[in-house]
């Protein structure tokens, strides 16, 4: 009961989708669309569980007088506040007159979520600079190749400063070298990596839909 039925479900759904992919029949498209909808519904509900986990851990830290508990309260307030506004927008409750359907959630999105996420990622520009000085060493032939190619591509992607003599010619030359490196050498490397990754996905996918790979079940 615990393991046989789930594995049977995985194999049945996996083979149904595979049959639907290869079969030209109209019935295949219906089967494919239905199973895709199942996956979407289950994935959405599974995502709701993510909230339960986050709330449980935050409440545990608040009750345990964790030094950061004031921030955990802030986390829960902003989360449930945005959830409440979002739900009202989706179902159209308490809609202020003159405002579009999604304006309230868009406002929270633009003033809270957008600046926070993009600034978090922009910190990496600083970390790359400190890593460039402190950690990127030409310790081996391979690492040296990487740093040289990286520098070449960096220079080939940007306009040359105008005070540089012949900046236009140098700029075009570097861009041509970078284009050759990208289209042919990087093209070759990427193709090999992509074919390798596809074989990995094919192997793992086959083992999952034939019921051989079961490690995801033993949670």
């Amino acid at each position, binding site marked *: 009961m615990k393991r046989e039925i789930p594995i049977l479900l995985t194999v049945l759904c996996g*083979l149904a989708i595979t049959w639907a992919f290869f079969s030209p029949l109209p*019935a295949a498209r219906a089967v494919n669309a239905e199973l895709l909808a*199942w996956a979407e*519904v289950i994935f959405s509900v599974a*995502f709701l569980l993510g909230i339960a986990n986050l709330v449980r851990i935050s409440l545990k830290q608040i009750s345990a007088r964790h030094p950061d508990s004031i921030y955990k309260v802030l986390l829960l307030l902003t989360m449930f506040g945005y959830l409440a506004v979002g*739900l009202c927008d989706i179902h159209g409750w308490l809609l202020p007159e003159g405002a579009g359907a999604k304006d309230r959630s868009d406002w929270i999105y633009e003033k809270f979520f957008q600046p926070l996420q993009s600034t978090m990622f922009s*910190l990496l520009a600083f970390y790359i600079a400190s890593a460039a000085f402190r950690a990127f060493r030409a310790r081996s032939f391979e690492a040296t190749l990487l740093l040289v*190619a990286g520098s070449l591509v960096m220079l080939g992607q940007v306009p040359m400063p105008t005070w540089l003599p012949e900046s236009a010619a140098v700029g075009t030359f570097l861009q041509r070298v970078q284009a050759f490196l990208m289209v042919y050498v990087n093209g070759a490397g990427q193709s090999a990596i992509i074919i390798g990754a596809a074989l990995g996905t094919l192997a793992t996918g086959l083992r999952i839909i034939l019921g051989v790979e079961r490690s995801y079940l033993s949670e």
Partner: protein
Amino acid sequence: MLLALQQATEPPFFSITAPDDVLGAWLICFFTLAVFSFLYKDNPFYKVAEHVFVGVGTAFYTLQYYEEGVIGRLYEHMEQAGRALGEGGSGVMDLGGTPVPAAWAIGLRSVAVLLSLMLLVRLFRSGSWAPRWAVATMVGIYAAIKMTGETQSKLVLQVEGLMRKPLVNPELASWGSDWAAVEQTQVFYTFANLVLLVGVLCALLHFVFTFRRGKVLAGASRVGVVVLMLTFGAMFGFTVLGRYALLIDRIDTLGDYTGGAYSLAPPPAAGSAGALQLMLSPPVLLAVLIALVLAVAAASRKRSA
């Protein structure tokens, strides 16, 4: 000069319909500067920003998946099927472009409802077997989707795509005259595609593990590593480009809010420099405040240490 020009229309203090409002400007500047303050040291401003980010982020993605996965795929689907089954309805529904009897549509979709409910059991009894049925279904569907799609486009069509880059193109002139034309010549074309072909073959051979390493395989693997390292170099170059594009955009956003309309100070009398107004504009004022608080905290810690 990139400093923002005066806003044409006067932005309201708070409005959810206007593209920009003063309260929004102050919030954006506070969160941007609070995250940047982490570069100096982890501090209360950063902790506020980090926890608001986790709260708002979790809520945002949950709303999207609720609206699409639960409302869209369940509620609206069942409603549509119900209308089709009703007296005026045709009894048939469209599913993936194929007409399907509405009764079947409801029956099949309720299986997804059942599986989702089994997933929720994990909230009450953590060790129970029920959630595994839902996870197993989802994993089976996604694994098959990925396997079929990627075998087609990343294996078969990728190899086929490489074949369509032949070594010889008879239509090209054999030698070029100036530098710009050299790329249109036969010699460059053949050399470039030879580099591509040999590069792919050697990189693939580098990832062959279970065959005995003869001289040929070891040599090809060496060339393969060179190709891979140049590829990683190219990716490194592009990552640097991307991160700085993002940083410049954040600084540009702060620049936009130095405009007078957002500042606490009233617009300057004609002719006098807007220095006071700039000082009290959201980015500048908040930056100074945060720096002051951190400096005072650092000084008091040094005295007490």
